[in-house]
């Protein structure tokens, strides 16, 4: 059975606080584009992951971070047409500012993923729905949104099962050239999609039969209270974001004048 994690201080925060912090962080990560400033923000999210007990899980995606970082540097360096000092590679001018911007974008994406990891690790799907609802989102919308997150692991499980079933018939999608590999995923994708659609249909039937949407005023078994931890966390995020916006307005934290 799965390893169980002991609850961290972040687990005890009110769901609305966590959803608000998520929204504030989405803005915060957009304020700077200078890699040093974004490195500081990434370091902050690493600390949050350490507090939330999700650091090991976050670290397990390191290959993914590396791919994102490399792709970001490469894409922005090549396609961001910036003047100024730089390098001449194969007759194309690549500005230092574009490279720095690319590094910054890589860090921005990594920090967002890290935040998503700590958020999903410390917020059960029901708490997420509750938080969205308390912030004014209709229950059905919030529930559907959180359900979509919840279904990701079950789709993954289905895909693994399908892969095993096809492997048992001698199919290996990871063999051969790029084109063969792409077509090699068709025997995995079709059963996975059809199975997932069937499961989704069964789930929606089960939800209806369990009275989903029956009453306008739905009650909840979960009880959450706003505590000092919530006030402090929100205050830190608001102060941090405000200070960052102020710095950016004072023309700090940007290698290029854009988001």
């Amino acid at each position, binding site marked *: 059975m799965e390893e169980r994690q002991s609850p961290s201080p972040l687990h005890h925060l009110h769901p609305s606080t966590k959803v608000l912090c998520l929204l504030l962080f989405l803005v915060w990560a957009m304020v700077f584009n200078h890699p040093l400033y974004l490195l500081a923000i990434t370091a902050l999210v690493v600390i949050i992951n350490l507090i939330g007990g999700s650091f090991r899980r976050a670290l397990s995606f390191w290959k993914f971070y590396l791919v994102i970082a490399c792709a970001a540097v490469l894409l922005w360096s090549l396609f961001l047409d910036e003047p100024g000092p730089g390098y001449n590679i194969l007759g194309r001018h690549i500005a230092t500012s574009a490279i720095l911007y690319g590094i910054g974008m890589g860090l921005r994406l990594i920090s967002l993923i890290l935040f998503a990891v700590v958020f999903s690790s410390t917020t059960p799907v029901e708490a997420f729905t509750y938080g969205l609802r308390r912030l004014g989102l209709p229950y059905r919308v919030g529930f559907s949104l959180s359900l979509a997150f919840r279904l990701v692991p079950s789709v993954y499980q289905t895909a693994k099962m399908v892969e095993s079933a096809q492997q048992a018939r001698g199919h290996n999608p990871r063999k051969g050239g790029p084109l063969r590999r792409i077509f090699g995923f068709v025997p995995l994708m079709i059963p996975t999609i059809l*199975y997932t659609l069937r499961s989704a249909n069964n789930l929606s039937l089960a939800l209806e039969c369990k009275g989903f949407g029956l009453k306008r005023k739905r009650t909840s078994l979960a009880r959450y209270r706003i505590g000092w931890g919530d006030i402090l966390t929100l205050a830190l995020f608001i102060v941090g974001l405000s200070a960052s916006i102020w710095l950016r307005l004072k023309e700090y934290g940007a290698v290029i004048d854009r988001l």
Partner: protein
Amino acid sequence: MKPSPQSPAVKVSGLSFTYQDAHTPALNDINIQIPRGSYTLLLGGSSSGKTTLLWSLARVVPEFHPGEIAGKIEILGEHNTSRSPQEMAPYLGLIMQDFASQLFSSEVATEVAFLPENLGLPYEELARRVAEALQMVGLSHLVGRDPQTLSGGERQRLAIASVLSGEAPILVFDEAKSDLDPAGRRQIDELCGRLCRGGNTIISAEVEVEEGAEADLAILLSEGRIVAKGSPKEVFANPDELIRCGIRPLDVTLLADEGGVPPQTVEEALQYLKERDIHPHPKAPAPKSAKPEGEEIASLEGVSFTYPRSDAGISDIDLSVRRGEFIALVGANGSGKTTLVKQLNRLLTPQQGNVYVGGRPTSEYDDAELASMVGYLFQDPDHQIFHERVKEEVGFGLRNLKLSEEETTSRTREVLELMELSELGEEDPYSLNKGQRQRLALASVLAMHPQLLILDEPTTGLDYLEVRRLMSAVEEMNRRGITVIAITHAMWLVARYAHRVAVISGGNKAFDGTPEELFADEELLSSQMLSRPQIVELSLRLGRYCPTVEEFRRTFTWKGAER
């Protein structure tokens, strides 16, 4: 909806239903009346209309699955016509067959609370209902767990608790026990009995009959019509009709004279046969040698495997498989049966120990080569089907083996014939029923001419006629020399087909021997919550071992035995 206290729980009059785009009705002129506090067994094979009937009570048809409906349905004295499935929830709880897709919460308690939360009940009432529902299914100790981390049996019980918490007076189980091991089934039966004694009305759709069924009423459906209705004793007394409807009858009912009233329990059968002077047949054939003694085709030596972040797996298992054997693997849900067989075709690789197929370690084979040696049929055929035509689906594995088109066509024709699917070669696999899809999946595996065939609970969700068709094809392949390893909870399949049986318990091999040895070991059967098929129990009580009714008839004779 205001339930009337005098009315029956369910009254169905002249109900017919045809799904949108279907040509034939799924239900045809159904008339039933189910008293409050009763336990009704709804029997029928695939496409008999059981699920549609249950759905019509819960208004899933025509609200969720549209179609043309005629007739009247009264639930607790009120017409359900203008209700939605949501509005039916406080009165009728529906527990579906596919329990895995009914669970969506991240915690056991919140899963169970979902239904009463939708009813807008106050916190104290929610807490009480959650605690009581979990206690009823024996999951109170798992209140904070993530449902995805529970075993199959626990998840099934959780799915039931998530409906029980609605405290609906009528509870409807749609083949809710099909994935469970014998112990899990027994727990659900006991729960249904308790609920019934507590005043609930239970309606349970099944594809099997069980000795001593506690139901008050049994209804047999076939092709959308009621074929028989009465007490279980009355309905079970006609084994030929049950078989025609896709239901496996009680073994002992097949021993009665033509037109006689058949016994239904082992005790009744003993009495019945003694009255008819039962004795061993003078020309009874000598017992056959049970075990083929071919060379070793596969073996596991000290194999251990544990899943990441889990205690589940297998530990230090040895198993030697001989050519031509039919081995049954039995054991509780989550005991490690599937983990064990997946080592044989490298779907899992052992963390300790060695696995050999055809005398070579499995690590030395490439994927296609191993797949052609070891065929694996998954429980759900929909995990593998993806082609648009039956023929192409069968040819998929053959193309992975890079066989010529000629050879592919010839093998495809051969296995489609064996599986009685020749006429469906051009059809879309998704247009076939579950039994046909399972046979198609088996055909696509057999086309690769494996030397060892692994079947992972191949009969789950199939009716008796489909099981017989599937298993007779497997038996034929076994007769031709293919070695078979089948995971199953059906002990009659073990008795009928297996030469050898291994019991897996908690990741260890608890027993390895012949079915006869297993069924003779009372202590082991009891500790592993396994039971003997009726005919085995009866024959052992008469001093012989007979795995099937046919064998019993060959071994014994009695007055009126020539049926």
